[in-house]
Protein backbone atom coordinates (compact mmCIF):
# COMPACT_ATOMS: atom_id res chain seq x y z
CA UNK A 1 0.00 0.00 0.00
CA UNK A 2 1.33 3.39 -0.93
CA UNK A 3 1.68 5.77 1.98
CA UNK A 4 0.01 9.13 1.60
CA UNK A 5 2.02 12.09 2.76
CA UNK A 6 0.42 14.01 5.60
CA UNK A 7 0.17 17.75 5.00
CA UNK A 8 2.38 19.78 7.34
CA UNK A 9 0.47 21.19 10.31
CA UNK A 10 0.14 24.92 10.83
CA UNK A 11 2.46 24.65 13.82
CA UNK A 12 5.26 23.07 11.85
CA UNK A 13 4.74 25.57 9.04
CA UNK A 14 5.14 28.42 11.52
CA UNK A 15 8.23 26.76 12.99
CA UNK A 16 9.74 26.36 9.53
CA UNK A 17 8.95 29.95 8.62
CA UNK A 18 10.59 31.18 11.83
CA UNK A 19 13.66 29.07 11.09
CA UNK A 20 13.86 30.43 7.56
CA UNK A 21 13.48 34.00 8.81
CA UNK A 22 16.20 33.36 11.40
CA UNK A 23 18.47 31.93 8.72
CA UNK A 24 18.04 34.98 6.51
CA UNK A 25 18.44 37.31 9.50
CA UNK A 26 21.77 35.70 10.53
CA UNK A 27 22.95 35.97 6.93
CA UNK A 28 22.04 39.67 6.80
CA UNK A 29 23.75 40.34 10.14
CA UNK A 30 26.90 38.67 8.82
CA UNK A 31 26.85 40.76 5.65
CA UNK A 32 26.21 44.03 7.48
CA UNK A 33 28.76 43.49 10.27
CA UNK A 34 31.33 41.72 8.13
CA UNK A 35 31.32 43.84 5.00
CA UNK A 36 34.62 45.44 4.25
CA UNK A 37 35.05 49.03 3.13
CA UNK A 38 38.14 50.94 2.12
CA UNK A 39 38.57 54.47 3.42
CA UNK A 40 40.97 56.68 1.49
CA UNK A 41 42.27 59.25 3.94
CA UNK A 42 43.08 62.40 2.07
CA UNK A 43 45.12 65.42 3.11
CA UNK A 44 45.01 67.69 0.07
CA UNK A 45 44.04 71.29 -0.67
CA UNK A 46 40.67 72.01 -2.23
CA UNK A 47 40.96 72.77 -5.98
CA UNK A 48 39.00 75.98 -5.36
CA UNK A 49 41.05 76.91 -2.28
CA UNK A 50 38.09 76.61 0.11
CA UNK A 51 40.18 74.56 2.55
CA UNK A 52 43.86 73.82 2.93
CA UNK A 53 45.75 70.61 3.65
CA UNK A 54 46.82 70.11 7.26
CA UNK A 55 50.52 70.72 7.90
CA UNK A 56 51.07 67.58 9.89
CA UNK A 57 48.63 65.17 11.52
CA UNK A 58 48.24 61.67 12.92
CA UNK A 59 45.05 59.86 11.92
CA UNK A 60 43.67 56.80 13.60
CA UNK A 61 40.63 54.90 12.34
CA UNK A 62 38.91 52.80 15.05
CA UNK A 63 41.63 50.93 16.89
CA UNK A 64 43.97 50.64 13.95
CA UNK A 65 47.50 51.92 13.94
CA UNK A 66 47.73 55.73 13.74
CA UNK A 67 49.48 57.06 10.63
CA UNK A 68 51.17 60.38 10.00
CA UNK A 69 50.06 62.59 7.10
CA UNK A 70 51.62 65.67 5.58
CA UNK A 71 50.15 67.97 2.90
CA UNK A 72 49.43 66.07 -0.30
CA UNK A 73 49.40 62.64 1.39
CA UNK A 74 46.77 60.03 0.80
CA UNK A 75 46.61 56.58 2.40
CA UNK A 76 43.99 53.96 3.01
CA UNK A 77 42.42 52.07 5.88
CA UNK A 78 40.40 48.90 5.44
CA UNK A 79 37.52 48.60 7.88
CA UNK A 80 34.72 46.18 8.61
CA UNK A 81 31.13 47.23 9.24
CA UNK A 82 29.45 50.59 8.72
CA UNK A 83 30.03 52.70 11.88
CA UNK A 84 33.54 54.03 12.44
CA UNK A 85 35.50 56.52 14.47
CA UNK A 86 38.26 58.79 13.29
CA UNK A 87 40.74 60.41 15.67
CA UNK A 88 42.86 63.25 14.27
CA UNK A 89 45.86 64.71 16.09
CA UNK A 90 47.04 67.87 14.32
CA UNK A 91 50.41 67.94 16.01
CA UNK A 92 51.69 71.04 14.22
CA UNK A 93 48.72 73.06 15.43
CA UNK A 94 48.36 71.29 18.77
CA UNK A 95 44.73 70.43 18.11
CA UNK A 96 42.94 67.07 18.46
CA UNK A 97 39.45 66.01 17.55
CA UNK A 98 37.33 62.90 17.04
CA UNK A 99 34.39 62.19 14.77
CA UNK A 100 32.26 59.22 13.91
CA UNK A 101 30.76 58.47 10.57
CA UNK A 102 28.73 55.81 8.81
CA UNK A 103 29.76 54.32 5.48
CA UNK A 104 26.83 53.60 3.16
CA UNK A 105 26.28 49.83 2.92
CA UNK A 106 26.72 49.53 -0.82
CA UNK A 107 29.89 51.62 -0.97
CA UNK A 108 33.12 49.66 -1.30
CA UNK A 109 35.40 52.68 -1.10
CA UNK A 110 35.05 56.24 0.19
CA UNK A 111 37.35 59.23 0.04
CA UNK A 112 37.51 60.99 3.41
CA UNK A 113 39.00 64.46 3.35
CA UNK A 114 40.45 65.28 6.76
CA UNK A 115 40.97 69.02 5.93
CA UNK A 116 37.26 69.22 5.06
CA UNK A 117 36.36 67.46 8.31
CA UNK A 118 38.63 69.81 10.30
CA UNK A 119 37.06 72.83 8.58
CA UNK A 120 33.55 71.54 9.35
CA UNK A 121 32.58 71.27 5.68
CA UNK A 122 29.91 68.67 4.96
CA UNK A 123 29.99 66.14 3.42
CA UNK A 124 33.57 65.35 4.29
CA UNK A 125 33.52 62.01 2.57
CA UNK A 126 32.35 60.97 -0.84
CA UNK A 127 32.08 57.72 -2.77
CA UNK A 128 35.19 56.71 -4.65
CA UNK A 129 34.92 54.39 -7.62
CA UNK A 130 37.74 52.26 -8.82
CA UNK A 131 37.84 51.46 -12.46
CA UNK A 132 39.32 48.07 -12.15
CA UNK A 133 40.75 46.32 -15.11
CA UNK A 134 43.28 43.95 -13.80
CA UNK A 135 45.82 42.53 -16.15
CA UNK A 136 45.30 38.85 -16.56
CA UNK A 137 47.89 36.22 -16.82
CA UNK A 138 46.31 33.87 -19.32
CA UNK A 139 48.35 30.90 -18.20
CA UNK A 140 47.48 31.53 -14.58
CA UNK A 141 43.80 31.92 -15.31
CA UNK A 142 43.49 28.87 -17.51
CA UNK A 143 40.82 26.65 -16.02
CA UNK A 144 41.68 23.00 -15.76
CA UNK A 145 39.59 21.44 -18.45
CA UNK A 146 38.89 17.78 -18.93
CA UNK A 147 41.56 16.34 -21.21
CA UNK A 148 42.89 19.73 -22.26
CA UNK A 149 46.59 20.48 -22.17
CA UNK A 150 46.38 24.15 -23.05
CA UNK A 151 44.40 27.14 -21.70
CA UNK A 152 40.86 27.30 -23.02
CA UNK A 153 38.77 30.25 -24.15
CA UNK A 154 40.79 33.08 -22.64
CA UNK A 155 41.48 36.41 -24.20
CA UNK A 156 44.47 38.67 -23.93
CA UNK A 157 44.82 40.54 -20.67
CA UNK A 158 43.53 44.12 -20.55
CA UNK A 159 45.78 46.99 -19.49
CA UNK A 160 47.08 47.50 -15.97
CA UNK A 161 44.80 48.81 -13.17
CA UNK A 162 43.84 52.43 -13.27
CA UNK A 163 42.35 54.49 -10.46
CA UNK A 164 39.85 57.17 -11.34
CA UNK A 165 37.66 59.21 -9.11
Amino acid at each position, binding site marked *: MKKTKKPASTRSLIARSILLALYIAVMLIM*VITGRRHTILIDNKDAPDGSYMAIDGMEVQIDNQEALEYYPGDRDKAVVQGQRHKIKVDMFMEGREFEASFRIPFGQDMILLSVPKLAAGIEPYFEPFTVLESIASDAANEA*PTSFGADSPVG*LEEGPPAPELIQ
Partner: protein
Amino acid sequence: MSPKKKSVSTWFSEYAVVIIFLAITVAAISPSKLSINYIIQEVITRLGRNSFLVIALLLPIYAGMGINFAMALGAMAGQIGLIFAVDWSVAGWQGLVFAFLVGLPIAILLGWVSGKVMNRAKGREMVTGYILAFFINGIYQFFVLYLMGSVIPIRNAAILLSRGYGIRNTLNLESVRQSLDTILKVNIGPFSVPVVTFIVIALLCVFIVWFRKTKLGQDMRAVGQDMTVADAAGIPVEKTRIVAIIISTVLACAGQIIFLQNMGNLATYNAHDQTSFFAAAAILVGGASVTHASIPNVFIGVVLLHAMFIVSPLAGQNLFGSAMIGEYFRQFIGYGVIAISLVLYAWKTRKAADNARSGLRGGASANGSLGANGKPALGDKNGKSNGESKGGRA
Protein backbone atom coordinates in the same frame (compact mmCIF):
# COMPACT_ATOMS: atom_id res chain seq x y z
CA MET B 1 47.29 -21.70 15.48
CA SER B 2 47.89 -20.90 19.13
CA PRO B 3 45.62 -18.25 20.67
CA LYS B 4 48.62 -16.04 21.49
CA LYS B 5 49.99 -16.22 17.95
CA LYS B 6 46.51 -15.61 16.62
CA SER B 7 46.01 -12.55 18.78
CA VAL B 8 49.37 -11.08 17.72
CA SER B 9 48.61 -11.63 14.03
CA THR B 10 45.08 -10.28 14.49
CA TRP B 11 46.46 -7.21 16.26
CA PHE B 12 49.02 -6.69 13.55
CA SER B 13 46.47 -7.04 10.76
CA GLU B 14 44.16 -4.67 12.63
CA TYR B 15 46.79 -1.97 12.94
CA ALA B 16 48.99 -2.81 9.94
CA VAL B 17 48.41 0.54 8.24
CA VAL B 18 49.11 2.53 11.41
CA ILE B 19 52.27 0.54 12.16
CA ILE B 20 53.66 0.80 8.61
CA PHE B 21 52.92 4.50 8.54
CA LEU B 22 54.40 5.20 11.94
CA ALA B 23 57.57 3.33 10.97
CA ILE B 24 57.95 5.26 7.68
CA THR B 25 57.33 8.64 9.36
CA VAL B 26 59.72 8.01 12.23
CA ALA B 27 62.37 6.77 9.80
CA ALA B 28 61.97 9.91 7.65
CA ILE B 29 62.32 12.41 10.53
CA SER B 30 66.09 12.09 10.83
CA PRO B 31 66.96 12.44 7.12
CA SER B 32 64.56 15.41 6.82
CA LYS B 33 66.78 17.32 9.30
CA LEU B 34 63.74 19.22 10.56
CA SER B 35 63.57 20.21 14.21
CA ILE B 36 61.00 18.43 16.36
CA ASN B 37 59.53 21.81 17.37
CA TYR B 38 58.95 22.70 13.72
CA ILE B 39 57.30 19.36 13.02
CA ILE B 40 55.04 19.67 16.08
CA GLN B 41 54.00 23.24 15.14
CA GLU B 42 53.18 22.14 11.60
CA VAL B 43 51.20 19.16 12.91
CA ILE B 44 49.19 21.45 15.22
CA THR B 45 48.40 23.77 12.29
CA ARG B 46 47.39 20.87 10.07
CA LEU B 47 45.28 19.29 12.82
CA GLY B 48 43.24 22.48 12.95
CA ARG B 49 43.09 22.69 9.18
CA ASN B 50 42.10 19.11 8.34
CA SER B 51 40.40 17.43 11.30
CA PHE B 52 36.94 18.84 10.57
CA LEU B 53 37.00 17.41 7.05
CA VAL B 54 38.08 14.00 8.28
CA ILE B 55 35.40 13.90 10.99
CA ALA B 56 32.85 14.44 8.20
CA LEU B 57 33.61 10.87 7.08
CA LEU B 58 32.45 9.26 10.32
CA LEU B 59 28.66 9.21 9.96
CA PRO B 60 28.53 7.44 6.57
CA ILE B 61 30.90 4.80 7.98
CA TYR B 62 28.54 4.33 10.94
CA ALA B 63 25.68 3.96 8.46
CA GLY B 64 27.58 1.19 6.64
CA MET B 65 28.17 3.28 3.51
CA GLY B 66 31.95 3.18 3.69
CA ILE B 67 34.10 6.21 3.02
CA ASN B 68 32.07 9.04 1.58
CA PHE B 69 34.13 9.97 -1.46
CA ALA B 70 31.22 12.21 -2.44
CA MET B 71 32.22 14.59 0.35
CA ALA B 72 33.85 16.60 -2.45
CA LEU B 73 30.30 17.77 -3.21
CA GLY B 74 30.15 19.46 0.18
CA ALA B 75 33.58 20.95 -0.46
CA MET B 76 32.28 22.46 -3.72
CA ALA B 77 29.32 23.96 -1.84
CA GLY B 78 31.72 25.53 0.67
CA GLN B 79 33.79 26.97 -2.15
CA ILE B 80 30.73 28.54 -3.76
CA GLY B 81 29.96 30.11 -0.38
CA LEU B 82 33.48 31.50 -0.16
CA ILE B 83 33.29 32.92 -3.68
CA PHE B 84 30.17 34.85 -2.66
CA ALA B 85 31.81 35.96 0.60
CA VAL B 86 34.72 37.40 -1.40
CA ASP B 87 32.37 38.92 -3.96
CA TRP B 88 30.32 40.64 -1.27
CA SER B 89 33.47 41.64 0.63
CA VAL B 90 32.26 39.92 3.78
CA ALA B 91 35.45 39.61 5.80
CA GLY B 92 36.58 38.02 9.05
CA TRP B 93 34.75 35.25 10.85
CA GLN B 94 31.52 36.78 9.59
CA GLY B 95 32.72 35.94 6.09
CA LEU B 96 33.15 32.31 7.09
CA VAL B 97 29.68 32.12 8.66
CA PHE B 98 28.24 33.82 5.57
CA ALA B 99 30.05 31.36 3.28
CA PHE B 100 28.68 28.46 5.31
CA LEU B 101 25.15 29.85 5.22
CA VAL B 102 25.38 30.23 1.44
CA GLY B 103 26.89 26.76 1.04
CA LEU B 104 24.50 25.03 3.46
CA PRO B 105 21.43 24.69 1.19
CA ILE B 106 23.68 23.67 -1.71
CA ALA B 107 25.35 21.03 0.47
CA ILE B 108 21.99 19.73 1.66
CA LEU B 109 20.73 19.47 -1.92
CA LEU B 110 23.91 17.76 -3.15
CA GLY B 111 23.89 15.45 -0.11
CA TRP B 112 20.33 14.46 -0.85
CA VAL B 113 21.18 13.75 -4.50
CA SER B 114 24.21 11.77 -3.37
CA GLY B 115 22.18 9.78 -0.85
CA LYS B 116 19.51 8.99 -3.44
CA VAL B 117 22.12 7.78 -5.91
CA MET B 118 23.90 5.71 -3.27
CA ASN B 119 20.63 4.06 -2.27
CA ARG B 120 20.45 2.77 -5.81
CA ALA B 121 23.96 1.43 -5.58
CA LYS B 122 23.91 -0.34 -2.24
CA GLY B 123 27.15 -2.15 -1.52
CA ARG B 124 29.07 -0.02 -4.02
CA GLU B 125 28.70 3.34 -2.32
CA MET B 126 32.38 4.23 -2.35
CA VAL B 127 33.00 3.90 -6.07
CA THR B 128 29.60 5.45 -6.76
CA GLY B 129 30.48 8.42 -4.57
CA TYR B 130 33.84 8.80 -6.25
CA ILE B 131 32.35 8.91 -9.73
CA LEU B 132 29.46 11.09 -8.59
CA ALA B 133 32.02 13.62 -7.38
CA PHE B 134 33.49 13.72 -10.91
CA PHE B 135 30.04 14.23 -12.38
CA ILE B 136 29.08 17.03 -9.99
CA ASN B 137 32.52 18.56 -10.58
CA GLY B 138 31.44 19.10 -14.19
CA ILE B 139 28.31 20.92 -13.06
CA TYR B 140 30.35 22.95 -10.55
CA GLN B 141 32.79 23.99 -13.30
CA PHE B 142 29.91 25.00 -15.55
CA PHE B 143 28.38 27.00 -12.70
CA VAL B 144 31.58 28.78 -11.72
CA LEU B 145 33.19 29.11 -15.13
CA TYR B 146 30.17 30.14 -17.20
CA LEU B 147 27.20 31.11 -15.05
CA MET B 148 28.96 33.27 -12.49
CA GLY B 149 29.31 36.74 -13.89
CA SER B 150 26.92 36.08 -16.77
CA VAL B 151 23.67 34.72 -15.30
CA ILE B 152 24.61 35.02 -11.62
CA PRO B 153 25.64 38.60 -10.93
CA ILE B 154 29.14 39.09 -9.54
CA ARG B 155 29.80 42.60 -8.19
CA ASN B 156 33.54 42.35 -7.79
CA ALA B 157 35.18 42.52 -11.21
CA ALA B 158 38.53 41.64 -9.67
CA ILE B 159 37.46 38.04 -9.12
CA LEU B 160 36.16 37.60 -12.66
CA LEU B 161 38.16 36.37 -15.63
CA SER B 162 39.18 39.10 -18.04
CA ARG B 163 36.45 38.07 -20.49
CA GLY B 164 33.87 39.30 -17.97
CA TYR B 165 32.37 36.09 -16.71
CA GLY B 166 33.67 33.06 -14.87
CA ILE B 167 35.72 33.13 -11.70
CA ARG B 168 39.50 33.42 -11.78
CA ASN B 169 41.58 30.29 -11.43
CA THR B 170 42.96 31.34 -8.08
CA LEU B 171 41.01 33.43 -5.64
CA ASN B 172 42.73 35.41 -2.93
CA LEU B 173 40.93 34.76 0.35
CA GLU B 174 42.83 37.55 2.08
CA SER B 175 39.58 38.93 3.56
CA VAL B 176 38.90 35.72 5.49
CA ARG B 177 42.44 34.38 5.75
CA GLN B 178 42.94 32.62 9.10
CA SER B 179 40.06 34.62 10.52
CA LEU B 180 38.95 31.64 12.60
CA ASP B 181 42.48 30.68 13.65
CA THR B 182 43.40 34.18 14.76
CA ILE B 183 40.32 34.92 16.89
CA LEU B 184 42.27 33.48 19.79
CA LYS B 185 45.79 32.19 19.42
CA VAL B 186 47.52 30.94 22.51
CA ASN B 187 51.24 30.35 22.74
CA ILE B 188 52.06 27.21 24.67
CA GLY B 189 55.82 27.11 24.97
CA PRO B 190 57.21 27.48 21.47
CA PHE B 191 53.90 26.45 19.89
CA SER B 192 51.09 28.63 18.66
CA VAL B 193 47.66 27.02 19.06
CA PRO B 194 44.54 28.26 17.20
CA VAL B 195 42.18 27.81 20.15
CA VAL B 196 38.87 28.70 18.48
CA THR B 197 39.49 26.29 15.58
CA PHE B 198 40.14 23.51 18.09
CA ILE B 199 37.01 24.49 20.06
CA VAL B 200 34.97 24.17 16.84
CA ILE B 201 36.51 20.74 16.20
CA ALA B 202 35.87 19.69 19.82
CA LEU B 203 32.24 20.79 19.52
CA LEU B 204 31.89 18.68 16.40
CA CYS B 205 33.33 15.69 18.28
CA VAL B 206 30.82 16.27 21.09
CA PHE B 207 28.07 16.45 18.48
CA ILE B 208 29.19 13.12 16.96
CA VAL B 209 29.30 11.42 20.39
CA TRP B 210 25.87 12.84 21.25
CA PHE B 211 24.45 12.00 17.84
CA ARG B 212 25.46 8.33 18.16
CA LYS B 213 23.26 8.12 21.27
CA THR B 214 20.18 9.65 19.67
CA LYS B 215 17.43 7.60 18.05
CA LEU B 216 18.69 8.60 14.61
CA GLY B 217 22.27 7.73 15.55
CA GLN B 218 21.22 4.32 16.84
CA ASP B 219 19.20 3.78 13.67
CA MET B 220 22.26 4.68 11.63
CA ARG B 221 24.40 2.12 13.41
CA ALA B 222 21.66 -0.51 13.08
CA VAL B 223 21.45 0.19 9.34
CA GLY B 224 25.24 -0.01 9.18
CA GLN B 225 25.26 -3.40 10.82
CA ASP B 226 22.50 -4.97 8.80
CA MET B 227 20.07 -3.24 6.50
CA THR B 228 17.60 -6.13 6.31
CA VAL B 229 17.35 -6.52 10.06
CA ALA B 230 17.07 -2.74 10.48
CA ASP B 231 14.29 -2.67 7.89
CA ALA B 232 12.50 -5.52 9.64
CA ALA B 233 12.78 -3.56 12.89
CA GLY B 234 10.90 -0.68 11.27
CA ILE B 235 13.86 1.61 10.69
CA PRO B 236 13.52 3.65 7.48
CA VAL B 237 16.78 2.37 5.97
CA GLU B 238 16.96 4.52 2.86
CA LYS B 239 15.97 7.70 4.67
CA THR B 240 18.55 7.05 7.40
CA ARG B 241 21.28 6.52 4.81
CA ILE B 242 20.31 9.73 3.01
CA VAL B 243 20.43 11.65 6.32
CA ALA B 244 23.93 10.26 7.02
CA ILE B 245 25.17 11.45 3.64
CA ILE B 246 23.47 14.85 3.96
CA ILE B 247 25.11 15.45 7.37
CA SER B 248 28.47 14.31 6.00
CA THR B 249 28.14 16.64 2.99
CA VAL B 250 27.18 19.60 5.19
CA LEU B 251 30.14 18.90 7.49
CA ALA B 252 32.40 18.66 4.44
CA CYS B 253 31.11 22.09 3.35
CA ALA B 254 32.06 23.59 6.74
CA GLY B 255 35.31 21.61 6.78
CA GLN B 256 36.37 22.93 3.39
CA ILE B 257 35.67 26.51 4.54
CA ILE B 258 37.86 25.95 7.63
CA PHE B 259 40.54 24.35 5.45
CA LEU B 260 40.57 27.20 2.93
CA GLN B 261 40.51 30.01 5.50
CA ASN B 262 43.68 28.50 6.89
CA MET B 263 45.29 28.19 3.46
CA GLY B 264 44.33 31.74 2.47
CA ASN B 265 43.65 31.11 -1.20
CA LEU B 266 41.26 29.07 -3.27
CA ALA B 267 42.16 27.12 -6.38
CA THR B 268 38.66 27.63 -7.78
CA TYR B 269 38.58 24.69 -10.16
CA ASN B 270 40.50 22.00 -8.32
CA ALA B 271 40.67 22.74 -4.58
CA HIS B 272 38.00 20.10 -3.95
CA ASP B 273 39.58 17.46 -6.19
CA GLN B 274 41.57 15.69 -3.54
CA THR B 275 39.57 16.65 -0.47
CA SER B 276 37.96 13.24 -0.08
CA PHE B 277 41.16 11.45 -1.04
CA PHE B 278 43.27 13.06 1.69
CA ALA B 279 40.48 12.81 4.27
CA ALA B 280 40.06 9.11 3.46
CA ALA B 281 43.80 8.52 3.61
CA ALA B 282 43.96 10.27 7.00
CA ILE B 283 41.15 8.27 8.59
CA LEU B 284 42.54 4.99 7.22
CA VAL B 285 46.04 5.82 8.42
CA GLY B 286 44.48 6.40 11.83
CA GLY B 287 43.45 2.77 12.00
CA ALA B 288 39.89 3.02 10.71
CA SER B 289 38.49 0.70 8.10
CA VAL B 290 35.65 1.19 5.65
CA THR B 291 33.30 -0.35 8.20
CA HIS B 292 34.65 0.90 11.47
CA ALA B 293 35.89 4.31 12.50
CA SER B 294 36.02 6.42 15.61
CA ILE B 295 37.06 9.91 16.66
CA PRO B 296 40.53 8.78 17.86
CA ASN B 297 41.15 7.32 14.38
CA VAL B 298 40.62 10.81 12.97
CA PHE B 299 43.23 12.49 15.14
CA ILE B 300 45.78 9.67 14.99
CA GLY B 301 45.38 9.65 11.21
CA VAL B 302 45.71 13.41 10.72
CA VAL B 303 48.80 13.53 12.94
CA LEU B 304 50.50 10.58 11.23
CA LEU B 305 49.59 11.47 7.65
CA HIS B 306 50.59 15.09 8.00
CA ALA B 307 53.75 14.35 9.97
CA MET B 308 54.70 12.23 6.97
CA PHE B 309 53.70 15.00 4.56
CA ILE B 310 55.91 17.44 6.46
CA VAL B 311 59.01 15.30 6.60
CA SER B 312 58.87 13.38 3.31
CA PRO B 313 59.75 16.17 0.81
CA LEU B 314 62.85 17.15 2.80
CA ALA B 315 63.77 13.55 3.50
CA GLY B 316 63.54 12.95 -0.27
CA GLN B 317 65.64 16.04 -0.92
CA ASN B 318 68.35 15.02 1.53
CA LEU B 319 68.42 11.33 0.65
CA PHE B 320 68.06 11.49 -3.12
CA GLY B 321 68.96 15.08 -3.92
CA SER B 322 65.47 15.92 -5.18
CA ALA B 323 62.47 17.26 -3.28
CA MET B 324 60.27 15.88 -6.07
CA ILE B 325 61.07 12.36 -4.84
CA GLY B 326 59.46 13.32 -1.54
CA GLU B 327 56.45 14.75 -3.40
CA TYR B 328 56.05 11.56 -5.40
CA PHE B 329 56.45 9.64 -2.17
CA ARG B 330 53.69 11.71 -0.62
CA GLN B 331 51.27 10.90 -3.43
CA PHE B 332 52.35 7.28 -3.55
CA ILE B 333 51.85 6.85 0.20
CA GLY B 334 48.44 8.55 0.13
CA TYR B 335 47.07 6.27 -2.58
CA GLY B 336 48.99 3.29 -1.18
CA VAL B 337 47.37 3.66 2.24
CA ILE B 338 43.89 3.63 0.72
CA ALA B 339 44.80 0.59 -1.38
CA ILE B 340 46.30 -1.30 1.58
CA SER B 341 43.25 -0.54 3.73
CA LEU B 342 40.84 -1.74 1.07
CA VAL B 343 42.88 -4.89 0.44
CA LEU B 344 43.08 -5.60 4.17
CA TYR B 345 39.35 -5.04 4.48
CA ALA B 346 38.64 -7.44 1.62
CA TRP B 347 41.05 -9.97 3.12
CA LYS B 348 39.45 -9.70 6.58
CA THR B 349 35.96 -10.03 5.16
CA ARG B 350 36.96 -13.11 3.25
CA LYS B 351 38.65 -14.59 6.29
CA ALA B 352 35.58 -13.91 8.40
CA ALA B 353 33.44 -15.64 5.78
CA ASP B 354 35.77 -18.65 5.87
CA ASN B 355 35.59 -18.70 9.67
CA ALA B 356 31.82 -18.50 9.58
CA ARG B 357 31.66 -21.32 7.02
CA SER B 358 33.93 -23.57 9.05
CA GLY B 359 32.01 -22.63 12.19
CA LEU B 360 28.74 -23.69 10.57
CA ARG B 361 30.30 -26.98 9.54
CA GLY B 362 31.18 -27.49 13.19
CA GLY B 363 27.62 -26.55 14.18
CA ALA B 364 28.40 -23.12 15.61
CA SER B 365 29.46 -19.78 14.18
CA ALA B 366 33.10 -18.96 14.76
CA ASN B 367 32.52 -15.28 15.26
CA GLY B 368 28.86 -14.81 14.65
CA SER B 369 29.51 -12.53 11.70
CA LEU B 370 26.57 -11.54 9.59
CA GLY B 371 26.25 -10.53 5.99
CA ALA B 372 24.33 -7.61 4.63
CA ASN B 373 21.09 -9.56 4.57
CA GLY B 374 21.25 -10.72 8.12
CA LYS B 375 22.58 -14.09 7.11
CA PRO B 376 25.96 -15.45 8.15
CA ALA B 377 28.65 -14.01 5.90
CA LEU B 378 29.13 -17.18 3.91
CA GLY B 379 30.04 -15.63 0.63
CA ASP B 380 28.99 -16.92 -2.75
CA LYS B 381 29.94 -20.09 -4.48
CA ASN B 382 33.31 -18.66 -5.43
CA GLY B 383 34.15 -17.95 -1.85
CA LYS B 384 33.58 -14.26 -2.27
CA SER B 385 31.93 -12.63 0.67
CA ASN B 386 29.28 -10.00 0.67
CA GLY B 387 30.68 -6.51 0.62
CA GLU B 388 28.54 -5.47 3.55
CA SER B 389 29.75 -8.25 5.82
CA LYS B 390 30.82 -7.22 9.27
CA GLY B 391 33.10 -10.16 9.81
CA GLY B 392 36.33 -9.14 11.46
CA ARG B 393 34.91 -5.83 12.49
CA ALA B 394 36.25 -4.49 15.74
